Every structure is written in C-alpha cells, then in structure tokens.
C-alpha cells in the first residue's frame, strides 16, 4: 500500500515536471506570437505633450459624444487621464479654464467649440482638441 502511494507520488512529480516543460514552451510561443503582432499602442501617449500646457491646472473639462460607460470610450478616457495626471478630467463640471474635446467626429468637436465660444489651442493625431474657455 505504501509502495503504491510512493509510486503515485513519483508519477505526480513526473507529471508536474512535464507540465512545467509544457508551460515553458507555451510561454516562449506566447512571447513569439505577441512580438509578431502589431506593436502595442498606448492611446494616452499622444496626450503627453499637453502636460506642459496643463501643468498648473488641477482640473479640466472633458467632452465626448460617446458613452463613457462602455468599454472602448472608457479605456480611451482612462488612458488620457493617466497621461495627464495629476490634472483631473472632469466629465461632469465643464465650467473649467481648459476643455478637452474627444468626439467620434472632429466636426462635432468644432460645433461645440463654436457653440460655446471656445478657443481651440491644440489638436493631436487622433483629432482630440484642447480648447480654452475664454469666458471662464
């Protein structure tokens, strides 16, 4: 009975070693596949140049026509928040000196700029516009 259990433990250890080898191979394959994929793009990176302008702003407005509770727009919003921290992106109170307009179509952003008499300052490669609220 004791010998039987000892054999079982030995089989168990061999199985664990085999699985470890399998994990190593799949890990290498995983790295290879990921390196062949398109390079990782961090959306927030293109907002880093705005930091200099917003250096003294603890809070700016954030306007979007997208549903911020759904995954993709929320991901974009949070990545911009990361890039611009410690400045807070406020989606609720837009009565701020600077407003960041991130709409699905740039035309919508321009319409908002005209409607609220904002002064566009900068635009990045994704069509996101930083505007100044001159009436603030």
């Amino acid at each position: 009975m004791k010998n039987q259990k000892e054999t079982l433990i030995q089989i168990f250890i061999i199985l664990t070693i085999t699985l470890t080898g399998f994990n190593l191979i799949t890990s290498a394959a995983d790295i290879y596949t990921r390196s062949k994929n398109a390079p990782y793009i961090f959306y927030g990176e293109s907002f880093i140049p705005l930091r200099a302008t917003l250096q003294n702003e603890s809070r700016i407005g954030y306007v979007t026509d997208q549903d911020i509770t759904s995954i993709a727009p929320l991901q974009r919003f949070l990545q911009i928040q990361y890039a611009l921290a410690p400045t807070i992106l406020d989606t609720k109170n837009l009565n701020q000196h600077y407003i960041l307009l991130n709409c699905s179509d740039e035309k919508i952003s321009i319409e908002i700029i005209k409607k609220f008499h904002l002064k566009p300052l900068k635009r990045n490669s994704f069509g996101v516009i930083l505007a100044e609220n001159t009436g603030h």
Partner: protein
Amino acid sequence: MLYIFGYLLSFCNGLLIFNLITTKTSIHPLLKFIFSFGLGMIISAHIIFYTLVVFGQLIPFFLILINLSILSYLLYQQKQTPKTLLAWGIPNDTILNINLSIFILVLATLLLKASLFPYGGWDAWAIWNLKARFIFLGADQWKNMLDPVLMHTNNHYPFLLPLMNAWIWCFGNTASHWVPLTTSVIFALLLPMLLGLSLYITTKHKFSFIPAFLMAFLPLYQLLSISQYADLLVAFYLLCIFTCFHMANEQKSPSLFFLTGIFCGSISFIKDEGLVSSILIAVLITFSIFTNKNITNEKNKILKNFILGSGLALIPAVFFNIFIRPENLRFINGLTSTSDPTSWQRLLFTIAAYFIEILKLNWQGLWFIILGGILLSFKTLYKTNTQKLIINFLICYLTIITINYFINTHYPISFWINTSLNRILMTLVPTLLFMTFYSIFLSQNKKG
C-alpha cells in the same frame, strides 16, 4: 539607471533592519535576501505615506535623505553586532545552483513579455500607476486622486504599490513608465524564487523548485504579473507571511513572529482583499500562538511581538480607512437594496464560476496538479501549524470573497467573475503550491 539606487537603498535598509531584529535566528541567506527586499520596499513606501500625512506632499530629496539617514544609523548599529550581514558567494549546493540558474530563464521571459506590454494592463494605468502619478506629480494636490469624479479609477483603494513606485521615481525626477514595469518584474521573479527556496529549505527535497517553475513559466502568471497589478504584491506578501510564520514556529523565535506581523499588517494597505487577508491571518495566527503547546515559556513575548509587528504595519491602512478613504461608489448592498437586490442564483453562479474558472485552458492544468497534490497528501495536509493556518485561511478567505460577490450587486455577477476571479485565484496559487508540495515532500521524507 538612477532608479536602481531606489531599489538598492530599500533593499539595504530592509536587510539591515532584518538583521537587527533577527539576531538569534538562522535564516538561509537567499531567503533573507528576498524577505529583505520585501521589507525594505514596505518601509520606503510607509515613509512616503507618513510624509504625505505630515507635510501634505511628496518631497523627493527629503525622502531620499530620510532613507539614507536610516541606512547610516543601521550601518552604525550593524557594526556593534557580531552577526554576518549576508553570506555572499555561490552556495556550495548543486541542486540550489542549478535551480537558481534556471531563474535567469524566468527573468528573461518576464522581461521579454513586459517589454511588449510596457504600460501594463487596464488596472495598471486606470488605478495603480495613476495613483502613483498623483502622489509623485501632484505635490500638495495629491489627494485629488480621491476625488469622486475619479470613481472609475477605484479611488477608494489603498495604495501601497503606488507608494513603492512613487518612491523609485524620486531617483529620476520623472514618472517613467519603466519603473512600475521593473517593480512588477522584480516581484514576479522573487515570488517563485521564494516559493522554491522555502520548499527547499523546509523539506530539502530535490524537486522543491519544480512547483516554482510550474508557476513561473505559466503564461497566465506571467501575463498577470507584468500587468503591473497589486495582486502580485498580495501573492508575494501572503507567501512571505506563511513562510516566515513557518520558520518562526520552527525556531520559536519572537523576532520572526514580529517580522510575520509586519508582513501581515502590510498587506492591508495593498488592496481591500489584502485588508481582509490581514485581519483574517492576524486572528488565525493569534489563535495559533495561544493554542500552540510547543510554545510555553515565550508565549507572551511571541504574542506581543506579533501584535506589535502587525500593529505597526497596519497604521497606514487604519489611518487611510478612517481619515482619507472616500466612499466606495462601487458598492450596493444587495441584501437591502430594492433596485439591485441579490438572489440565490447569484450565489450559485459564483460557486459554479470557481469550478468553471479552474477548468479554463489558460491555467494549463495547474489546478489539476494542486488538487491532485491535495488528494495525494491528504493525510499530511493538516499536521503542522503552518498547514493548519493556510487551510483555515483559504476556507475563510474564499468564503468572504464569495459572500462579497453575493452581496455587492453594483455590477452583474458575470462582470465581477470575468474581471477579477482569475486574479484572486492567482494570488492564492503560490500559497497553495507551497502547502501542497510541502505536504507531499513531507510525507515522502517521513517514509524515507
């Protein structure tokens, strides 16, 4: 490159403090090395926390000065004690040397994967590293990270990991995204090392490092580790607690119980799950000390040391929860809510989710090894105090997690399960592997 000095300074302080408090104990130098790094990072992070509370902001120069002053004082103290700081050199142990060299491969895979994923996963840039940026760049406005507007970033979470990264940033004056990446790679490397070493030291079994490599080469472990999440820290410090407790029990060492207490208290400031674990383990260890018949003469001293260590390390979490923590806007009590009531189906779904999760292919059979190991070592599974502590902890912890899933109806249960269950289980994997293989090797050694 300057950032390396941050890690080094924390390590040196950790090592010297470790040496100072554990004068009458014998610990393997490599294990001492790992514990020291973990301890040093906790101390540096806690110093930042107190600086934030007292001065209202992070002052890099001041923080480096405090850490250097501590180092100087500890070096002076070290000169007064005859104990060797760390036995340098290659250990005269073939099994250990072979296994340690395999860790170079672990490091290589972790670095390669991390470099493909430099900003980490969702929670890294949305929660942990975002908090670190507020702390480091926010000056006296750092508390803005707790603003209700930032509810998407889980602003109510504690922040030990962000403090660690903010500390390292002090050495370069910029909030480089390479620092959180490096921190996660270091902990991801040290965790399997700690697992393998503690098994090897306690059982002397030639295959002690196999479970460590089984976990370290698992793509899911690597992915979750390099995602720069705080769960890795919970996993690391949980294993620190159990291995330290094991040695403290074996050597009946009050100073090792003090260290166990420090690790136990510290996990309370990593995550909410850490706070739950911390309280649970503190209660279980206190009970274990009380009922331990092998400890007679020094029972009071051991208990005092453990409570003192836990208490000291718990201060940031207690202070945060009483004075700083904003309201958790992601909590709805499903038991009392009429709009989002909980249901028995929710509970059944949660229980079923555990079984579905462990059957998932991305675990690559790891849970079969753990369950198989538990079955094989069933008779020796609940023998030592450490085994009892781990099993009692796991049962209570998983029950609490399940109740939380059941009660908190802010999100549909499928959301909680999909976004957090694999991470929660992964934090328990190193401890489970330690317990399982310790029991197996123990039963083999007894026969031998």
